[in-house]
């Protein structure tokens, strides 16, 4: 177990280092923010003067080294636009995104798990077909479109929900639905197919032969085994939820990290983009680690690494 953890942590460090290289150089391909930040009439001298003051004219490798050595000490630099520490700007917005992502996550589990169980237990039935249709639609709807449709329906037409902002639970309803749609679809589909597979296995037949009740077979015997592949996907979905939040937050003007990131990219606010991407990478690395560890809880065979 200890070896496993150490190797995973090493792996995490390498991933984060790779991500830092990628984000640092990729965002700089399109040029630095000096011209975007100054007024249109700024002369070329003004731009160069500003660039020099900000240190954007130094060789990229040196800038990267500077960034990396500070970042390892927890200093991710100051935001150009906000004149505040970049990581602080990201972390300030994490609670809002967590709240939205959490609501969407719970919503998708609450919808997907019962739907998948019902579908698998009644294979070929109307419910099953409906579940397949729902997951197909859920996976194909673009979040942006769905968000606009919900706003048109519930805000503009019926005046039932506020189209934007944060503060009350009403503000969460539409963004959470939009965010949950894709993950609900994917979890339903996967859990259904693994349940069907497990239900055809020998031990389930044995259990049935012994006269175990079908509901017990389904919920206790089959679900636990079917959960392992599903869990991997759920873990991936957490990443997708955070990533999907970028679009959803923008449409619903929800003050989370996704909105900050979009704006920072548009403004070439390098430090904020770096802080955001590294934060996301760290979160996903940690979630993957937790998913790996949780396999052991579900499957005793994996606990000792046999």
């Amino acid at each position, binding site marked *: 177990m200890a070896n496993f953890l150490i190797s995973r942590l090493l792996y995490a460090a390498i991933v984060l280092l790779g991500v830092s290289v990628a984000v640092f150089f990729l965002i700089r391909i399109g*040029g630095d923010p000096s011209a975007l930040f100054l007024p249109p009439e700024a002369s070329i001298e003004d731009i160069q003067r500003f660039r020099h003051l*900000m240190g954007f004219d130094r060789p990229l490798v040196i800038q990267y080294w500077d960034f990396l050595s500070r970042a390892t000490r927890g200093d991710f630099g100051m935001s150009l636009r*906000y004149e505040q520490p970049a990581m602080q700007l990201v972390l300030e917005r994490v609670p809002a995104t967590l709240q939205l992502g959490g609501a969407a996550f719970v919503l998708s589990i609450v919808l997907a798990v019962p739907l998948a169980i019902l579908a698998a237990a009644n294979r070929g039935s109307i419910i099953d077909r409906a579940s397949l249709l729902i997951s197909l639609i859920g996976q194909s709807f673009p979040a942006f479109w769905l968000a606009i449709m919900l706003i048109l329906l519930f805000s*503009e037409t019926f*005046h039932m929900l*506020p189209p*934007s902002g944060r503060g009350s639970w009403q503000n969460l309803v539409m963004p959470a639905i939009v965010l949950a749609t894709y993950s609900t679809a994917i979890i339903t589909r996967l859990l259904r197919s693994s349940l069907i597979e497990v239900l055809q296995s020998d031990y389930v037949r044995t259990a049935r032969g012994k006269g175990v009740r079908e509901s017990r077979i389904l919920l206790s015997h089959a679900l636990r085994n079917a959960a392992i592949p599903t869990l991997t996907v759920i873990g991936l979905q957490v990443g997708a939820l955070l990533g999907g939040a970028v679009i959803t937050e923008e*449409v619903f*003007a929800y*003050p989370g990290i996704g909105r900050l990131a979009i704006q920072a990219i548009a403004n070439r606010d390098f430090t904020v983009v770096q802080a955001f991407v590294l934060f996301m990478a760290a979160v996903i690395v940690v979630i993957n680690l937790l998913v790996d560890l949780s396999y052991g809880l579900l499957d005793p065979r994996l606990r000792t690494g046999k």
Partner: protein
Amino acid sequence: MRKTTDPTGRSAHRRTEKGEQMKDILRRHFVAGTLGAAALALLPLAASAQNASTIVVAQAADAYSMDPAKHSAFPTANILFQIYDGLVSQNEKGDIVPALATSWSNPDPLTWRFKLREGVKFHNGEPFNAAAVKYTLDRALDPNFKAPYYSRISQIKSVTVVDDYTVEIKTDKPFPTMLLSLYEASFPALIVPPSYTAQNNSADLAAKPVGTGPYRFVEWKKDERVVLEANPDYWGGKPAVEKVIFRPIKETRTRIAELKSGGVDIAVDVPPEDMASLDGGETKISTVASDSLYFLAFDITRDTPLKDKHVRQAINYAVDVDAIQQALLNGMGTRIALTLPANAFGYDQAWKPYPYDPAKAKALLAEAGYKDGFTVPLMTRKGRYMKDSEIVEATAGFLAKVGIKVNIQYLEPGVWGQVSEKKGREGITFPGWSGRDPNLVWYPLLHTGEYQSYYSNPELDKLLDAGAGTIDQAERKSIYEKAAAIIKEDAPHLPMIQPPLIYGLDARLTWTPRPDGMIDLRKAHF
């Protein structure tokens, strides 16, 4: 659906006596309970729309900083203009009017002397005086301060306190557009309180602003809202509306939905196609032709057909700008004869644009030796200005009709900047510009060697230098008249339109938009 939690519990903060009584009934009747919760939830929505003592403004972005000298974004400036004042201001017609300065004069062409308003206090009680003006400008003029809008005030060489309420600003060269560098759209010219600003290296000001303006700062929830309250001691009179909230809503559809559902009172940048649905009932539309300029610029620094004056004139004849304005902008905005806002200094209403005459265009092209047309790149950005790509594509269609094939290249904003820095804009471009004086438009766009200029004409250069070199307005007017004749004839641009600014408003709100796009709530009322 059956898994609904206790509805009254979820809206506990709005719990009323009635709600308490309903609780037991709701528990027993689940479906009714869900509906009841929805109904309870709807009440506050309806209520917020009825509040006439608050103006909620929805614009595309939040403030970046509350320090006026530390940002370069218009949405931020709109918020700060309610909190701070400049020495001078602009009225709704676009004239420069007194603000913290009551009058000004030029003892000599290099000196601007301002008499300051007496008895004005900052929101924290600090007195406004000549020292505050000097402190404000000196701070932003310090190169190490890194004010993004430094270039707008960099002509100022020194600021001198003459007495408590007189200040002198000196320049090295005559600076005819000084007043446009001191009003609110010149961001670092908004006056800050010296003692408070000096605290914590301006960090206090950047988080909790203190100005002399009509509204005082209350709260800033980042990316969510900025809340301001009326300043009862405002020198211009207490504003009619008690509270102002600025909300950042980037997505146009969402801003419109907020306006329609009563969540906001002013929504900026409404697309022309949404105007009809917002004009009538509880909402209305307010528009004004902006100071911005839509035009095509031709690169004559490279050896292309565009170097030939006849070709440039032909393009002017070939494009039906009126039709484009009608079709894409609902006829709004102002058609311009030269690349200069029609309300700018020196603009003569008698100027006429080239008429739409494709036959004449073809004849000119033939005369220039391009009977069969030619191909040229057209570089622009997409979504930088309202309907920009649509206008560019319509233009390309008109040009195709006379045999000019344009290859439209949409550049990402950062790449556009990179290309521009290398003087790399080729062929035709749609750069956009703004400015209320020929010295702010023609000089940067047409003077030989200027960063934004892809044109050169020694005769015009002389006139533009002369116009920049004097503060005598009558003299400048005659100089720019001559310059205008050259520009019209030599056609370095295809001047198009001052596009409109379109706002969606709560129908009960009285508020007038300004051509420069700054939002001024001083006189707004329900």
